[in-house]
């Protein structure tokens, strides 16, 4: 059949000249990408950013070189083999069908490229996913439409993210409502904040400064403002020298403890739990608690357990702190918050609850059966 009758073809000088020109252009583009001033537009704030940029340079250089060759040949062939005015209507091109050698090479070439790229990507990916020990663990929580953060030994959620230069950080991200995303372009890293799920990545800050955090997963009306433009609190991460970080951390820890001390004082004054209004409690629950607790059975865990029957559940006679599930003990947890191996819950101040609110909430929880 026709395959066997393919004419033997020779590439002319013009073809090789064009190839040489394209090769030079491709080389220039490769050199450009190797030395492109990426960091002058977007600083690299963490160690992983340098590695990801290296991968990007590799991808961009090879991609551009490939693109130059393909488009160059398309352009050259289109012009060189264009039908001229004098060509007869029934003229045909060179009747070749295939060339096993050529096809073998151009299947092998992308295969090799893919293998190299896969190995390159895997190495960097491994560094991002696998955290070393001894890291500072920070938790970021997405809300509509701002971020809050939790630090070890700091009560409640803080509104700014500070990281010490040179200290390895493990970042846990999650959400209290819809899916958000946590992207710091200067870090080249991103993870979606999914309600009911904790995503993790690891990095070490290498450059001091203030960097923008951007949400890239559609999260509602003000999604477009969920970066430094947010109306609630501008989303920045501050990478500080260790000393400045330490003083910020100490100050924050103190302030948050003050807040909980105030509650401690309040809780000494016994709450009178009777006379609570379950309907007000239900509204409060929807506004303040439902991000982490369902009104459903215990197993409906969001962040904490479902609270239906919290005061009357034979399967769980004790509360998380080991006390008996009485209204008084529930009120105590609402006042003081909870911190333990299972997780933590903010205290009265962090949740913005008055004593009256707590009474109403307990009254509401009693009705959940």
């Amino acid at each position: 059949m026709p395959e066997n009758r393919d004419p033997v073809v020779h590439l002319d000088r013009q073809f090789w000249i064009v190839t040489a020109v394209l090769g030079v252009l491709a080389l220039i583009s490769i050199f450009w990408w190797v030395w492109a001033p990426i960091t002058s537009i977007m600083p690299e704030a963490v160690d992983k950013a340098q590695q990801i940029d290296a991968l990007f340079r590799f991808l961009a250089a090879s991609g551009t070189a490939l693109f130059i060759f393909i488009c160059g040949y398309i352009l050259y062939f289109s012009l060189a083999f264009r039908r001229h005015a004098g060509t007869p209507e029934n003229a045909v091109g060179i009747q070749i069908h295939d060339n096993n050698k050529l096809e073998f090479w151009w299947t092998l070439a992308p295969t090799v490229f893919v293998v190299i790229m896969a190995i390159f990507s895997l190495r960097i990916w491994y560094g991002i996913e696998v955290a070393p020990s001894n890291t500072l663990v920070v938790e970021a929580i997405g809300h509509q439409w701002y971020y809050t953060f939790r630090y070890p030994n700091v009560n409640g959620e803080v509104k700014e993210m500070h990281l010490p230069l040179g200290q390895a950080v493990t970042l846990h991200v999650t959400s209290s409502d819809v899916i958000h995303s946590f992207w710091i372009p200067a870090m080249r890293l991103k993870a979606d904040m999914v309600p009911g799920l904790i995503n993790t990545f690891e990095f070490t800050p290498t450059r001091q400064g203030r960097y923008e955090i951007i949400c890239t997963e559609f999260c509602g009306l003000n999604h477009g403002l969920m970066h430094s433009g947010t109306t609630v609190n501008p989303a920045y991460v501050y990478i500080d020298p260790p000393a400045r970080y330490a003083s910020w951390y100490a100050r924050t820890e103190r302030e948050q403890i003050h807040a909980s001390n105030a509650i401690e004082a309040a809780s000494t004054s016994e709450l009178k739990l009777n006379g609570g209004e379950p309907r007000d409690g239900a509204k409060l629950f929807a506004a303040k608690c439902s991000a982490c607790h369902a009104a459903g059975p215990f197993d409906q865990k969001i962040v904490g357990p479902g609270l239906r029957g919290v005061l009357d559940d034979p399967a769980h006679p004790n509360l998380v702190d080991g006390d008996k599930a009485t209204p008084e003990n529930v009120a105590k947890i609402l006042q003081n918050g909870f911190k333990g191996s299972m997780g933590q819950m903010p205290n009265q101040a962090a949740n913005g609850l008055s004593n009256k609110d707590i009474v109403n909430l307990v009254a509401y929880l009693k009705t959940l059966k």
Partner: protein
Amino acid sequence: MTAVAAHAGGGLADHIHPEPQGFIRKYVFSIDHKIIGIQYMITAFLFMILGGMLAELIRVQLMKASGGLMTPETYNEVYSVHGSTMVWLVIIPLLTGGFGNLIFPVQIGARDVAFPWLNMLSFWLFPPAGLMLYASFLMGAPTAGWTEYPPMSLNAYGAHDGTSMWAAAIFLIGVSSTMTGINFLVTILKMRAPGMTFTRMPLFVWGQFVTAPLLMIATTALGAALAALFVQRQFGVAFFDPTRGGSPLLWQHMFWFYSHPAVYIMILPAFGMISEILPTFSRKPIFGYKMIAFSSCAIAILGFMVWAHHMFTSGLAPALQLPFMVLTMLIAIPTGVKIFSWVTTLWGGVIHMTTAMLFAIGFLATFTLGGITGVFLAAVPFDLHAHGTYFIVAHLHYVLVGGSLMGILAGLFYWYPKMSGRLMNEKLGKWAFWLFFIGFNGTFLPMHWLGMWGQPRRVAVYDPQFQAWNQVASWFSFVMTAALILVLFNALWSMRNGKRSGPNPWNARTLEWQIPSPMPYYNFKHVPSVFAAPYDFAEPLPYRGLEEELT
């Protein structure tokens, strides 16, 4: 010559349902694959006008960093319906229902598809579904993008009632696609003319052949996801609601298990079109026929195994990210082989620079760029940076507009005579091509760096530092729109005023060009026998039994 198949009697392809009489049965509820194909095209182009208007609303809104044209709420509705329209009501119907129906049965020498009545039903599910999608504006259109990720697509988190309508509309489209897939697959498997072996099928038929199983399998999975979303919204069935134990990630798995193959549903038929147009206008056999055909199969199979690469940042288990990354990169190999083969097809040809050929060549350039950025995104570390930004918007428009839509426009100019018996105006066509090419690249090229620098997608307002490049994109998008208006005007105008084409204006060799234009109801008086692939331009035609077709 010895290769004519043994069952040369013609078999099933000999039989045809009687030609219906009367306007309604002939042009409205027709069971003729050609009429149905044209119905699909007209409907889809109408929806393209609507979707295009929404696109321009988006670009006008983004002229200013502070927005201003629309409230964020309206803006979210607009881009969600724009995406849904373009994917489900324009590109997929045009490529499968439209060009697929119109051309491939003739190319395999059949007189109709296997189940003509089912074909009619497939089409008639499509306009109602489209109208339902637009009717959702009346009750508050969906706002969470064409992907409608829960929890944003649940009313408790701010979604509109119309989201259920959206789910129902897309479900209907899905049923229609599934039926089309079954129909096409059986047709290609069972109704080829005698001698039309798999390696003699035109490459457009190959495109449809590998797309049909994708339509059939993937779309059903989408149906399941949409049904689950619908009952979650309407009856509180806790599939996706995280507060009740459901999983938002489950939706992403179910959705992308469809929507990644859907990407190939949207590009494989376009690959087929390009593989017809390039050899015809180069007067040269397609280079590496078998590699092009088999690489389509490879892409289709791999396409089912890579869906989670849309979820690298969503919280996919690390052990799963690795295989998905590597499998995704593997797709670069068959795709690369195709592109190399197409470029080599140009070499040594006698190239007729018609408008169809210009669009095909433009396709090569822009699709290559879209493909390359696709490989970038397969690398997880790069995806961690680019995911959810305008880089994605750029990438997906490069493959869907620079790929699929360019292919569609090439096909429109190429096969227009087979619908109308007339040629589209070449001069207008070339103007349209250059405006489109410039407008398209001007619109979407800047989005690559906008995304890299930090502009997230699906935002109604953005950081003012990006305003200049957004304005560039918007201005060029007007050019692109003008080009598309020019194409549609050309198609309308040429229906009456175009030059008469005769049966084979391009000197092409596949079967549809050997019968009159427009194609007669029965396609072939005699079902021909086939004894070679259709691309040997120096040889006589490889068919027997066509002598009476043009008399």
